Structure formats: C-alpha cells, structure tokens
C-alpha cells in the first residue's frame, strides 16, 4: 500500500479529503492518506506520494503566473 500525504492551506472538509483520497487510489492503486495543513500554500493542496510532489497549491500557481508575466515583461 502506498503512503500519501496531503497538505492543504487550511482544514478541508471530510468530504473533500475523502474525494482526494479516492481519486489517488483510482490513479495509483491502494493508497493510505494522511493530512496536514500548511498555511503558506495560500490555497489548493499538495500531494506527496512515491517521492513525487503533485503541486496544486495557489502559491505555486501564482508563482507560475508571475513567471509568465515576467517573461512578457522581459520580451516586451
């Protein structure tokens, strides 16, 4: 059985948490999940599984968006 850690920006509802666990099991096989909170994510969540990070946090998305706008600025 695989071990996954789900990091959320704030406490998620059980429904949301169970939904994420179910999706992980569907994709990667039987998975045991644990959850923690990390306010620095700002929003969204991160899954740590099998030595990989699946990052859907708002912090990373904003950072990527900033990079896109920065590229435009540099090219302009």
């Amino acid at each position, binding site marked *: 059985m695989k071990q996954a850690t789900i990091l959320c920006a704030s406490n998620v509802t059980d429904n949301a948490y169970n939904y994420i666990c179910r999706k992980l099991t569907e994709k990667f096989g039987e998975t045991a999940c644990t959850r923690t909170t990390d306010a620095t994510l700002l929003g969204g969540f991160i899954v*740590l599984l099998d*030595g*990989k*990070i*699946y*990052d*859907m946090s708002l912090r*990373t*998305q904003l950072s*990527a*968006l900033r990079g*896109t*706008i920065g590229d*435009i600025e*540099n090219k302009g």
Partner: protein
Amino acid sequence: MATELSTFLKQKIESYSVQPVVYAYGTVSRVGDGVARVTGLPGRCYGELLQFESGAFGMAIDLEEDGAGVVMLSTSDVVSVGSRVRGTGRVCDVPVGDALIGRVLDPIGRALDGGEIDVKTYYPVERRAPDLVSRRAVDTPMETGIISVDSLVPIGRGQRELIIGDRQTGKTTLALDTILNQKDKDMICIYCAIGQKASTVSAVIETLRASGAMDYSIVVAATASDSPALQYLSPYAACAIGEYFMEHGKDVLVVYDDLSKHAVAYRTMSLLLRRSPGREAYPGDIFYLHSRLLERAACLSSARGGGTLTALPIIETKNGNISAYIPTNVISITDGQIYLESELFHNGIRPAVNTGLSVSRVGRAAQPHAMRMVSSSLRIDLAQYREMAVFSRFGSDLDPATKKMLDSGERLTQLLTQGKHVLYSLGEKAALLLWFRNGGFDTVDPQDMHKTADDFLYKLHKMCPEALAAIDRTGECPDEVQQQLLQTARA
C-alpha cells in the same frame, strides 16, 4: 498605452490554464556544518542546484543510489531535518555580460556592491575547457609593468602563470599591479577573492577604484565568512565570466587569490561529506579541482574570435616550502611560476622575485622584441652575481674583477626593485635595461639606483619622448632608436 497593456494582461491571465506541477522530491536526513544529506530525489545530476523547502539553495556534489550529498550555498540554519528538497534541473550558473564590468558580485551572481545586476545571459560555472583545435600558441605579451617580471618571466596573453610565495611577500600586490597596468590596454580584468578576509577584499576594491581600474575590472568574492561551497565555486564563476568575454573576442585576465584557500575549502567540504581523505587529508580529486579550472585559460584561434583568457593563480606556501602538495600540483599545471621569497622581501627587494626559481615556459615567445633584446643576459648575470655574493662572504679581499661584478649585480638587483603600484611602460623598461647594459649606471652607488633611474627616465621623457612612445607602440627597439636613447642619456 495603459489600456492596451491592461487588456493584454487580462487576456494572458484568462488564457492561463491551471495545471498541477509535478516534480520529484527528497527529504533532508542530516544537516550541519554547511552540508546536508538528502534521501530520495532520484535522477539528479552532478552539480545540480537543489531548492530546500525554506527557499535555501544547495548543490548536489555527491551522488549516491539512495540520495545525494549537498553543500549549502546559504546558511544551513534555515534547513531542518525532514524538510523537503526539490531539484531545479539546472546546474549552478552565473550571470555574464558587459553589465558586470565595474561590479562586485558573489559566486552565484548576487551583487555585493548594492543594486541589481541587469543581465540576461547566464553561463554554468563548470564548463569544458576549449578543445585543441580552438587554441593557438601564446604570441601576444601581457605586460605587468614590473621590470623584473617583464624582463625575466614574461607572461603572454592566454598563459597560466602562478604567483607563489609565503604570506606577506607581495603576491596580491603583484597581481594588483598587473591589473592596474592593463589600463587602456583593451583587457578586462577579473579579481577573484577566495576565502580572504572581507577587510582585505575591501582594500583591494578600494585600490582598484582609486586607480580607475574598476572601469575595466570585475570582482568576484567569497570571503572567509562565506560557506565553503561558495568559496569552492568562486574561481569557477570568475572563469565563466571571463570565458564570456573571451568568446566574444576580448582579452581577459583572471587573478585567483588564492588557490590554497580554495583547496582548503574543498577539503572541508569533502571531509564533511565523508569522502575518503588522502594526502594531507585532501580528497583524491584535488589535482583535477585545479587542472580543470586552469585548463580553461586559453588563447583562442582566430576562427573562434581570437580572444584570450590569462590566468594568474596565487598559492601561499608555508615556510617557503614549494614542494608541498598543493604548490607542486599547481606548479605542474601552470606554464610557469613567479616565486616571491620572504628573505628578499625583508631585505627590501620588492617585488621579491626569486629569479632563480621563477620561470615562464611560454611567455618568452610572446615577449616584445625590445625587451628580449635588452634582457637576454639578465638571468645569467644575476645567477653569477648570487653565486659570487655567497662566496664573497667568506673572504674580505676581493680582486677588482670580482668586486666589479658584485657591484654590477647589486646595481642590477636595485634596478629590478620597484615601488608598490609604480609601473613602467615598455619603453621605460627597455630604456633602463639598455642603459644598464651599456654601462650607464656603472658609476652609480647601488643605494642611489632608484633616484638615478628616476632622473634618467625624467630626462628621456623630457628630451626624446617620441623614442619611448615608438617602443611602446611597436614593441621594437631598432638601432636608431637605441642610439637616440643612449645619446640623450649621455648628454
């Protein structure tokens, strides 16, 4: 304009699709003393930059099946055991470009003199040395302005000439003088400080600023308070910056001050990473550490732009022992060495160049004809003088011929001494040595040599400046110019 920009940004934001970012991660299992051990994180490459959860960066330099040994590029206080690490997919790099000229930066390109560094090009700090077909033989002089060096151990552009000596023998001063002498000579100079005291580096920068040398110089500094990893990276970063200019057809001089401290920083890192210690506790690849750096000094062929990168590495010896491990390694890598001796230094002979142990293996081919002509017998004259001086200590009665030789040798020794940051042009050096060869200083008391030489040069500058300028311009000293100089001096 503002509306257009706003619309453009809105479109970009609307068309931005949210995708999960997936990357491998590892976990810090041990951290301390500037190194960390990371487990997991497969597929890393040597020298890859890793980012810790706290935002700190490290460099993977020890790759193992189940993890990596990482040296921290910033303080290790911000990294804790159990925190996550991710690979960045890029090796350590440094900004390069014209905007760096006049700036002071650290080995990873952060400005140390305030402000931002506005460049868009980055070079990896570790790069392959130019291959065989890209190189040509060293054929252009790189003058130091120091009469003893330019006459006896000439340096060519693209050469690697080691400056070696005990502490407080004038190694940095000699390197700095060389930088100062490059003013208006279309040479970009890089001073790389490794493990030096911040106050020392600050004094060097001040000297460069005061002399206007920062207009064509860059300082890369990792001081003694920086992590061993930064000290280790420092010369490679300086070299990468130099390579950018070299590949754009320019001539570059890089001073590595000093590689002894660099070797010590690497030894620290290696021991902390638990690599097997070898001789003097240095790791097995200590030779390769310096050979791969100094091989990057080159004289590129015209097909590659014809740029050059001259390296002046500095090594500090202990009690004059040049046969210690690191000194012998670097001596064997470089194209010659300038050996500065404590005894000479304390006897007031400065620069304290030991002409017997100093050698330039390729620079003679690049020496200007004017200097070659007047300095051909200097080495033998000095060797004979030293030998005779040793024997003369045993007896007080000397025959006139021996006494004459000793006096001449003493005058020559005095002629080759030079004040700090007092630099001679090619014409001045050639004229002084020409006058010496023709017996012009024979009646001068050795203690008055400096004053007499200054008066002699003043006279030449006043009465035949065109002859000196011609030597500077052409590097030649034909018969008619020689006669003109001698006649003026005799007048």
